[in-house]
């Protein structure tokens, strides 16, 4: 089974549906002032010359193949799920040292009230039951996808091909 998220940046509108669907699926406690949600949505305002473009990006754990967090974790709390190949955390083993935060290139690890790391597990139980991750299901524009990385990029490639033809 595959283990990738894919975000079609052209279709992400910053609507936060994915972020809340994740909270609901995982019973997340978000009342503390700092951001503890596993999926975050950002508005990026990019200026090129006099042109300003606002773009939106939804991000959660990338479930890297060569996961830096997994290698950095001194207590073996981070592991790879055998079935879905998601990078998962066993809170019982986490010692709250934040090594994973330092290692993660995407700023993904979050720490709950108990001080232990928590993050997206790719809705592994849902994947095994043939369901898509909660965030993917909610996405109103279908910007967020999950599946085999090669199939996801093939879809993107198809769109690029269509654009090439449209330009001629």
């Amino acid at each position, binding site marked *: 089974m595959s283990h990738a998220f894919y975000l079609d940046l052209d279709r992400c509108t910053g609507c936060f549906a994915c972020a809340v669907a994740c909270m609901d699926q995982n019973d997340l406690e978000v009342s503390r002032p700092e951001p503890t949600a596993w999926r975050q949505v950002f508005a990026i305002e990019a200026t090129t010359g006099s042109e300003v473009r606002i773009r939106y990006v939804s991000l959660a754990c990338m479930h890297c193949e060569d996961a830096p967090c997994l290698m950095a974790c001194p207590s073996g709390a981070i592991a790879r799920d055998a079935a879905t190949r998601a990078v998962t955390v066993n809170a019982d083993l986490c010692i709250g040292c934040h090594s994973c935060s330092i290692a993660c290139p995407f700023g993904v690890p979050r720490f709950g009230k108990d001080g232990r790391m928590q993050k997206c597990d790719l809705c592994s139980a849902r994947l095994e039951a043939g369901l898509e991750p*909660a965030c993917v299901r*909610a996405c*109103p*524009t279908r910007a967020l996808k999950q599946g085999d990385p090669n199939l996801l990029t093939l879809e993107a490639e198809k769109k690029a091909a269509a654009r090439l033809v449209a330009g001629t």
Partner: protein
Amino acid sequence: MDKLQRMIKGKIPGEATGIEVRKSICTICDPQTQCGLDCYVKDGRIIKVEGSRENPHSEGTLCAKGAAQRQWVYHEDRLRTPLRRVGPRGSGEFVPISWSEALDTVVENLNRLKAESGPESVIFYCGYPKQMRPFVQRLAFLFGSPNYCTESSTCFTAMAMAWRLVYGQMAGPDLAHTKLLLVWTGNPLWSGTPNARRLMDAKERGVKFVVVDPRKSPIAGLADLHLQLRPGTDGALALAMANVIIKEGLYDRGFVAEWTRGFDEYRIYVAGFSPERAEEITGVPVELIRQAAVMYATAKPAAMMPSSTPLVHHTNGVQNQRAAAMLVGLTGNFDVPGGNVPQALAWLEVPGGGFPARDHAFKMPRQWSEMPPRVGAERFPVWTEMIDQGQAMDLVRHITTGDPYPLRGFVGFGLNYRMFPGSPRFLEALDKLDFICLVDLFATDTTKYADIVLPACSSVERSEVRAYPQKHIIATEPVIAPLGQSRSDTDIIFGLAQKLGLPYQDYDGVSSNGGTPPPELGGFLPDGSPEFSAAFEAAMDWILEPSGMTMAELKKHPAGMPVPNPIPVSYRKYEKNGFPTPSGKMEFVSSITEKYTDREGIDGLPVYREPRLSPVSTPETAARYPLVLGTGTRLPMFIHSRMFRVPWTRSLRREAMVDLNPADAAKYGVVQGDLVELSTPEGSIRVRANVTHLAAPGVAHMYHDYPEADVNSLLSPDYLDPISGFPGFKASLCAVRKVSEAAPDFDLPQEVAR
């Protein structure tokens, strides 16, 4: 963790986990969205929600608000019993009482007011959602009061009025077949997410997007052309586009000659709106105006997407919307495939729902002529002629002056006082009333003013019928039992009607002809709570009768079903029937508005006027309040006041913020997150600055309804469009200044504070 534990934690439905998926709909927001909802239920409690795949409108998706359903439904602020006020109004001091005592108190007071001051002295009002509206209107009319008002006094109706003034009907965009979409304000990517996917698909198909919006909103991000106009100047822009289209001969001469009224006057009027003049007014460069006009007129077909509020939340809103809507007919895009196509409204005003129903007869058991004039009748004659409701924006004046008759009682479902401009003035007026009963899901700042509060339940705790534009219909069943002693709105309405002794369930009006009406369904449970589910189903059966659908059949399809034998989509219907306007034609000069031209701000032509407060119309005020203020522009995680209390949605924007352009922020020495004072001649509030290019230079946008920073308190209750009565929420004037965090709560004179 073993496999079962893992499945339970992952909320996987099935026998092993004891989790069942039950079908409902989300009614947290109501602007014709209402996504299908799959509720994951375990031990009688919802543990998760997601979108229903079977719903052809939302197709399995949800928005941020709908996804937070569970925290909303189970929120600690939910009302669980009827309440009687014991402290002063506004204090929030209540005691729980029984349903019997509550309903009897309401009925006693309504009958007393009726006897003392006539039935018209009682106001009946609906906020969200829309499901109970026809039921409340029927209650009001049978009671004898014409004063049925809704939150549509500030939403949607003015837009529909404008289209009806031009075409006799509303006509939505045929997105599936168009080549160009002219989005005239509004951002459905946040506010109407079932359409978000379709808009993205259209973009990928190569449909051109022309977006008129003061904001750099997500949908403006899709635009091939973005016309970023000064708020409230839409009319001038539309007239200039017409100017270009006519001058360059790009209009549909055949259609205009045969099917329109007043074209010559219109042509002469728009000749005064050169793109150069429009650039001065709107700030949109001449070249962009020309380009947009030519693109729209030549795309063939091109569709225009109107919006429920941003274009009509202006003191000149209806005229601006009329000017924009006229471009459709002018360019031959009315009622053609890929243009704007009128479709009959189904139950609860869903366009293109595809079936006939008797909702009009249901909600209007009396005619207007049989009752005294309703709220707003004198002040808003165009509204009163066109819309089957009172105009609630006249409530403050009417209650305060008692002119033309006293208003003394209020029965409100989902009333939120902060949707009224000059909101504190609305509360003051409310407080003058003799008796107030409010029905709500939550204890709110508005329910604090009620004498009796009745607890309603949410959509997942009740049954209701909803239609969708894809010609799909659903009759839901409760997914969970109502929380505490809460009941559905319709239970409460039927219960009140029965206790008032009204012939509510006599749909064929048998009793008024001396006949014997059918026996009444429903009644009161041992605890006194109203239980009228059978009456609700019988009412729906009566309403749906012309469609051939029955509740029994609908209930066999828990996720909904296609409307049987739907009314097919057809085009150029006017060729057969004419236009449903007084002249039978598309009206450039309105036969309705031209009757009222003795009133300030009403004309037959779509005359452009400046917003009543603007840098142009009130330069002296603008010298002190230099920014244009827009209130209520949607955020994706909130809908009016409904989602502030929900931790999941609130976490996405924790504090009340005003959107300021970086240039303005720099001018006022403000950086992201700074505390600022936002003030108008009516007052001031303190909020955080959100520095963003979403806002154009010179414009501040502030979301409404925050209890701690109520921006609508900064407007006058009389800042209204004379045609629709809609408030000018989207264009007034304000000033922003940075406030020191250490500043005391009380206001120091400005020079000291600095």
